[in-house]
């Protein structure tokens, strides 16, 4: 049995990754586009692991002690089941403003209700690049992470290029009544009040609590 340990490790890791992808829980950790890669990797690990366990009398080398560390992701997923990055990390992460300033964004297109839906990072980028957003009704979705120095609620979203380790944070202060606890997801509709070139501030017309989106990070 001991000689099959390596195959067992491969099989277990493959099963864990497969479960993450099937349950669509992987987007809390990596970009949505990585799903196919993860699925393929899980397939290879499951196949080779199963083949190793089933094949008769193959000699396998004992995995080195460090392979025991593979139990760490397993424990973290089962015991901690960490959610996507939230308000705690928003205070730590670097701002997406630097990146947003260099990206090119297509013009905003308003829907039938006269409101344009946009990502937070694109709104920050458009405003910093000098687009005049004043007068455009915007619909933004994000979570609450505290208040800025003027006491305005901060609507927040992370941008992820590859995985949560490269996350940068986009924040838009909301001018509105009422409050919401940290990590509450809000869908707000409002207009930008700041001049082009500045970090945008949103005058909120309406706001409602929503479920956390399936893909918590913006691109």
């Amino acid at each position, binding site marked *: 049995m001991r000689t099959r*340990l*390596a195959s067992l490790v*491969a099989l277990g*890791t493959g099963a864990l*990754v497969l479960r*993450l992808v099937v349950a669509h829980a*992987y987007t*809390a*950790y*990596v970009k949505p586009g*990585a799903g196919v890669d993860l699925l*393929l*990797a899980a397939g*290879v*690990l499951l196949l*080779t*692991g199963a083949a190793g366990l089933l*094949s008769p*009398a*193959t000699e*396998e*080398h*004992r*995995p*080195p*002690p*460090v*392979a*025991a*560390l*593979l*139990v*760490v*992701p397993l*424990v*973290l997923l089962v*015991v*901690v089941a*960490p*959610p*996507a*990055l*939230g308000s*705690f*990390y928003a205070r*730590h992460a*670097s*701002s*997406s403003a*630097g*990146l947003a*300033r*260099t990206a090119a964004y297509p013009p905003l297109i308003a829907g039938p209700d006269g409101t344009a839906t946009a990502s937070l990072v694109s709104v920050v980028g458009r405003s910093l690049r000098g687009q005049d957003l004043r007068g455009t009704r915007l619909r933004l979705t994000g979570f609450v992470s505290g208040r800025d120095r003027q006491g305005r609620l901060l609507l927040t979203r992370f941008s992820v*290029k*590859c*995985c*949560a*380790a*490269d996350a*940068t944070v986009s924040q838009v202060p909301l001018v509105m009544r009422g409050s919401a606890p940290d990590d509450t997801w809000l869908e707000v509709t409002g207009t930008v009040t700041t001049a082009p070139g500045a970090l945008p501030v949103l005058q909120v017309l309406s706001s409602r609590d929503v479920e956390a989106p399936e893909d918590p990070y913006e691109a």
Partner: protein
Amino acid sequence: MTLTAPQDVRGHEHPQGPVAPEVTRGRALPWLVLGACVLAAVVRLRAEPLLQTWSTVALAVVLQALPFLVLGTLLSGAVAAFVPEGVLPRLVPRRPVVAVPLAGLLGFALPGCECSSVPVAGRLIGAGAPPAAAFTFMLAAPAINPVVVVATAVAFPGHPEVPTARVVASLVAAIAVGLVWARWGPRLQQCAAHEHHHGGGRLMALRSALVEDFTSSAGWLVLGGATAASLQTLVPRDLLDIVAGSSVGAVVVLAVLAVLLAVCSEADAFVAAGLTQFSLTSRLVFMTVGPMVDVKLVALQAGAFGRGFVVRFAPLALACAVVSAVLVGSVLL
């Protein structure tokens, strides 16, 4: 016993033989106790935002690298299974001055990030490739392959000189490391004798090599992910702005940051693009160092080639990467 061929890079340090069960049990007990304590602490603190954030980042690093690690072990398994003994030494030019730059240029052909290239380099050495050439390939591939070059061009729109400078700086650094290693690196025993004879043909050999390479690399990847997560969640980012103003300070800080953050080479250009308070040259240093030396990569290399190897190799690669990036940056950027 893990007798993957690359272990012989450790030179005098011979792989341990099979350990008797009772010895294993005696050694394992303290680790089991430690593991139980850690597990108890994790269960108790599982709702803490710090632990949750740490876990998210650690899992993210492991998960994003996993497909590339599997791709790398698949390729390395294919080398082990399908490249007959003795073919590689005949194909690769004998002289390092020819073989090393050639290996660097071949890095264009392995699309993926740094986690694929470590097991591939290990197996190439096992199959008889000169170590210096294999290491150059390992360092160059993650930085200059088409996927990374395109990502870099996308991250720096309007700056076509940035992807160019990145390719040149990475290639120069990788070749420099290879040449230094060929001239002064420790002599390694070539180790055809350790090629296994697996029953059941090539497919079986592929499967067996894949499982072995995967289990020995993935544990180190977890260690690297945990280190990167600790630094990401515990070090405040405000410190960065203070040093960004000095040109030497910026280079040093971004080199250190590249090592500590362990961002995948497919994403590091986007991170660099966001660090607008830093000079372009210091950001080139970030993008040149990261794919060659970072905590997760050092952990993977320690697993593949031994700790004694990493102690010499990582500082050499770091020095070459910084010098090359600064020189190329001052000319091209």
